Structures are given as C-alpha cells and as structure tokens.
C-alpha cells in the first residue's frame, strides 16, 4: 500500500446514477475528499454496484459484478461512495454473496470494511466538522433508507450543513420514511410509488424550504420528478453539491441554465 498516515489513497466509487445523470456530484465528492486531506483516484473498471441484479434475484450476475468490483478496488486505503444505497451494497451485502467461498469472502469483507458513504467518511473517519461553503436559503433533508438504516447516517450531513454559511435546515415531519423509489420498485409498482412520493413531497412542501437535499441520486430523481410534475418551486440537490459550494455554478436537478 502507498498509504501515508496523513494522506490516504481513496478510491471513488462514482455510482452509475452520478456517472450518467449528475457527474457534478462526483466532482463535488473529489473536492470534499481532497479538502479532507485525501489523495483521490477513480478506478476505470467500475460501472455499477450490482443492486439492480441483486435485488431482482439474479444472484449470479450480482456475484460476477461483485468480483469485478473487489478486483478494481483492491489496494486502496478507503473506498468512498456518494450514496448510502450503493455504499450499503458494498459494505453490508456484498460479503454475503460469497458466504460459501471463503477466499473471496475475505476479500469482499476487506473491501466492505474500508468502504464508506461520502458524508459519513468526511465526519466519522476524517474528522471534518465544517466546510467552506455558503448557501443562501432554507433546506430540508431526506434521510435515504439504506444510508439511515444500514449505515447509520443521520447526524453527519446535518452537522456539516450546520457549518454552511447562510443555510437554514428545517426538518420534515417524517424525514425517515421511504420516498417510494426503491430501485426497480418505482417502475414495477408505479402507482404505489407515485402515492408514496406524493406523501413525501407534501411533507417537503409543508416545511416551506426552498431546497430539498439528500445523499442518494435515486431518491433525489424520484422526488425531483414528482416535485416537477406538481409544479413545485422546490429545488433538488445532492447534499455534496452544497457542501462543496457548487450551487452557484450548477443548476438544480432537472433545471437548465437560463
């Protein structure tokens, strides 16, 4: 390993939705990690964490994809993911794909142990307590399910957001209830998913916040899509965009530069 105690080598797991839909979140992650004293690299061989296969019951494909990820991300000090859902896949689920293959199981567990969701990595591992960012407005924060319940992410984003100058956080009545995205759930059961996200957008609207933040692109696209359909003025962003002070140059999700 090339680690030096002061400057760990961090591999960024970009996630397929950030890659395809919101590349700026990847750059925000790199910027935040560098500000936290990390040397960031982006392994080229990555595509997706495999959840679409894993959660559809296609264990063979999920296992094959996991092997590729284990190879691609070997040798780094940490793996950081700007998503609780994909982070949870790597750190909570992936080792169990190899429960009857002890050698790969050990490698998967080693990867799991060094994998962290972005914001919790900044606070819990790198000890970051504040960011150099400003945001003029009121925001509300949605706790994405996997980040909250698999990885215990709750206070970390709020702690860093509290240091953003000009930003006020107003909580929803139930920030922890699922937004109805659920990966393939939202297209397999669109009627139920739409009702669930409508309950969520009503809660968002009731806060009076001008901006909705969360740490997972899937949930964000779902809520942004519903807010847009409702004609809501609420803007939607990944929390890393705010923490990396990108919001002046980057239109919100689904918005176009005038």
């Amino acid at each position, binding site marked *: 390993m090339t680690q030096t105690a002061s400057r760990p080598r961090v591999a960024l797991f970009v996630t397929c939705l950030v890659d395809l839909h919101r590349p700026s979140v990847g*750059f925000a992650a790199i910027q935040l990690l560098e500000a936290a004293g990390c040397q960031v690299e982006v392994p080229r061989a990555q595509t997706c964490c495999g959840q679409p296969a894993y959660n559809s*019951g296609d264990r063979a494909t999920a296992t094959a994809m996991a092997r590729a990820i284990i190879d691609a991300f070997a040798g780094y000090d940490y793996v950081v993911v700007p998503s609780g859902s994909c982070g949870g896949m790597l750190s909570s689920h992936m080792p169990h794909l190899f429960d009857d293959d002890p050698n790969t199981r050990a490698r998967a567990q080693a990867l799991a142990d060094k994998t962290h969701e972005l914001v919790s990595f900044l606070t819990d591992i790198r000890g970051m307590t504040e960011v150099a960012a400003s945001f003029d407005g009121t925001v509300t924060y949605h706790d994405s399910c996997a980040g909250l319940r698999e990885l215990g992410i709750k206070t970390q984003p709020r702690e860093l957001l509290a240091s953003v100058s000009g930003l006020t956080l107003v909580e929803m009545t139930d920030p922890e209830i699922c937004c109805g995205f659920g990966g393939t759930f939202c297209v397999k059961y669109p009627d139920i998913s739409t009702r669930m996200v409508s309950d969520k957008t009503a809660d968002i609207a009731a806060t009076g916040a001008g901006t909705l933040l969360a740490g997972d692109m899937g949930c964000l696209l779902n809520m942004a899509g519903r807010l847009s359909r409702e004609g809501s003025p609420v803007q939607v962003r990944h929390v890393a965009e705010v923490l990396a002070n990108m919001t002046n140059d980057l239109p919100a999700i689904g918005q176009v530069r005038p």
Partner: protein
Amino acid sequence: MLATSADFKDNSTRALQDKGLHKALQAARVALPAKRAAAVANLPEFEQLRDIGRDIKNHTLAHLDFYLETWERNVLNAGGHVHWASTADDARAAVLAICQRVGARTVTKGKSMVSEELAINEHLEKHGITPIETDLGEYILQIRNEPPSHIIGPAFHLNREDWEESFRKVHTQLPADRVFAERRDIMSEARTLLREKFLAADVGITGANFLIAETGSSVIVTNEGNGDLTQTLPRVHIVLASIEKVVPTLEDATNMLRLLARSATGQDMSVYTTFSTGGRRPNDLDGPEEYHVVVVDNGRSAMIGTEFQDMLRCIRCAACMNHCPVYTTVGGHSYGWVYPGPMGSVLTPMLIGVDKAGNLPNASTFCGKCESVCPVKIPLPKMMRHWREREFERHLQPMAVRTNLALWAWVAQRPALYRLATRIAAKALKLLAGKNGKFTTLPLASGWTAGRDLPAPEGDTFFARYAAQQRNQA
C-alpha cells in the same frame, strides 16, 4: 380463503382509489409508530430484549421437536388433548370432529390468524355449525363478510362511520335513534349483543400467542376480554396454534410478552393476558370440561433448515406492517391472503406457493423499516430477496423484466462498452429534453412518467468529463 395475491397490482390500484381506506391508513400510519416509539423509549432495555427474544426463538426452533413433545406431555398431564395436524385439511377435520362429537350448534371464537389461514368458519358453516366472532374487529368483519386486513387490528381498513353503518344495518332490534359518538358506544353495543352468544356457545375456539413447554399452557392476549369468555364459558375449549408458537419456559413467555404489546400497540401489556392449562379441575369453579389443542404445521416445518427459517420467529405483533410505507399506502387487502405487509410477503409465498404470491416479495422498496422494528429481529428484506432469487431461478418473472436485466447486465460487465453506451444515453437525453430540462413522457419509461417527470441528466457522463480533466492536467 381464496388467494388473490397474484392480483396484487390490481388490488393495490383499486385500494389507492379508495378514499375511506386512505383516511383509515393515514390516521394509523402516524399513530401506531408513535405509540410504539413511546413504549420503547420507556423501557431502556428494549433493544437487549429484542436480542433475548430472537435468541429464545432461535433456540426453540433448533430443538423444536424436543419442546413440542415436552409441551404435549405436559398438556396430557394436565388432562388436555393434543391433535397434530400436518395440513390445513387435517386441522379442519380435527376441529369439526370435536364440535360434532359434542353436538355443537354455535361456536364462539377469539381472534386467531391461523383460523383464518385454515378457513375454519367456512368449514364449520358448511357442516351446519354457526361460528361467532367475538373480537370486536372480527365481529364487524363477519357482519360485513370481509376478511381481516391486519393481523392484530382486523378492521384496520375501516373508519368509525363504517362501523356505525354496519351496526345500524344489522342490529335492527335496537332503537334507531341511538347515538354512536365514540368507539366506546360501538364496543358497548357489541358487548351487549355478544353476551348471550357467549353463554349459549357449546365450543369456544381461540388462537394462542404462545405455548409453554414446561407447563403445557397456552397463552392468549386480548384487549377486550372476549378471549377469556370464549375459552372459559363453553363446555369445550379448542386452541388453534401453529408449531412455532412453543417457547420453553414461563420465563421465556414473559420475556416475549414484554416485547409483544409494546411492538404491537405500544401498550406495556395487553389488557388481558390469560394462561390456560388443561380443562376444569375437580375443585375449579369455572372453566371448560374439555381442553383441546390443534397444533398446525401446514407448511411450516418445511421452512426449517432453509433460508426462511428465521421467519418462524415471528410473534405476529404487526409492527412490520404498522411501519411499512407500502402496507400503509395500499392496506392489507391488497396482499390478497391472510397475512399482509412485510411478514406476509415472506410467509405467504411459503404457504400458498411463490407462483401465486410472487408479487408480494417484489412489492417492497427494501427500506428496511420493518426489520428495524421487528421484536425478534427477523431480516424481512433479506428473505423477500431470497424469494426473488427463487422466482428468478424458476423464470417466474415477466419476460420483459428478464430481458432488460440480462441486456443491462451484459453491458454493465464490459466497462469500455458501458462507458460508450452511458455517454450516448446521457447526451441523447440531455439533447432531447432541451430547454425543459425534463421529460414529461418518455417511451419505455411510462411507469416512471405516469406520476413523475424525469429530470434530464447534466449532459456528459462523469467518466467522460473526468478523462477530459485528466488529459488537460497532463
């Protein structure tokens, strides 16, 4: 009960349009989690208790034969009778035989989900015996000829107005100008009318929350006291219990009871907790002359040793459904059989076949809330995923789903090709969305765009931009 689980999608679409159901669910989805949270906050050792509950159940399941045989011996020692039923047919036959032997005309019933699973009421009616549900929720459902929509609050889907309407329609012997202002008025009317039924019944049937091996007892918890009148007044008491209800000791049962009501209703204890051990003894003042337990397997022993064994820890508290965002959106009837919500989505495919219930384990966002509140820590999302794996192995999913998944998987395992395909997709979507920045309709994505816009991507992929940045820096 005829299963309509295969029609979950249609059932839920209908449910979403039902305004009364929506009202009932909206009230419950806030109230019940708040009650549980308050009860849990008042018991500092609750989290440790969940581990204890899980361990008691795991230990019992690992030695199930031993504890069931011990329990049986102690029932017999107390003068009771045990009837083993491997199938639903066996269980129905055993219940009917007892009722017929004693010449039963009416049978009172406490609330029992296994009796719903066995469709005991229909079976008794077919043979000229009248079953009378005495739990308030079950009583109104019997009047309305509806199945329960929840495992502890069977009339979860109804509002107070529905109760009043049904009572006025059926209780025509009572003054028409009587007032139903509160739940108490409904309760008191039902109590008055049920009193004579309790006294006239020849047989009382209850479920069991627990069977206790060391004493041969059965335990029921209720909030209305109807279960006690059902099991003590008639000449014969029949307990219906599935095999996984057994716990080794009285102390184990009390640990489980500390978890049960808090998880279910947020009470510290249910109002009535009753232990039955055998029938009436020579010097007892009351109690049934005969005490029978029909022990039902009906597919459960086949779960032992499989990836579904942990499901047998379930104590039927309903915390998983009370906290489930899908259940509290579509209601219990959408699930199409006896057991709804997350626990039903795992159990139903086992009991009626995954080919008939395959929708259920798919109708979850895997949000994990159910597992986080389960008093015996059943990994419900993991087991729903196991069902999806079995469906995938058996090719039970729609062809289009399999084809799309296979195509995506093929590309996603070839990073260079994947880079190219995603780059084309990102640019095309950005271009097509134009100044709107979003799609209001999109071919092949109608499921998404029916209720939501699809925000357009930024325009180029992360990897393309990152590669360009690296080249510029070099």
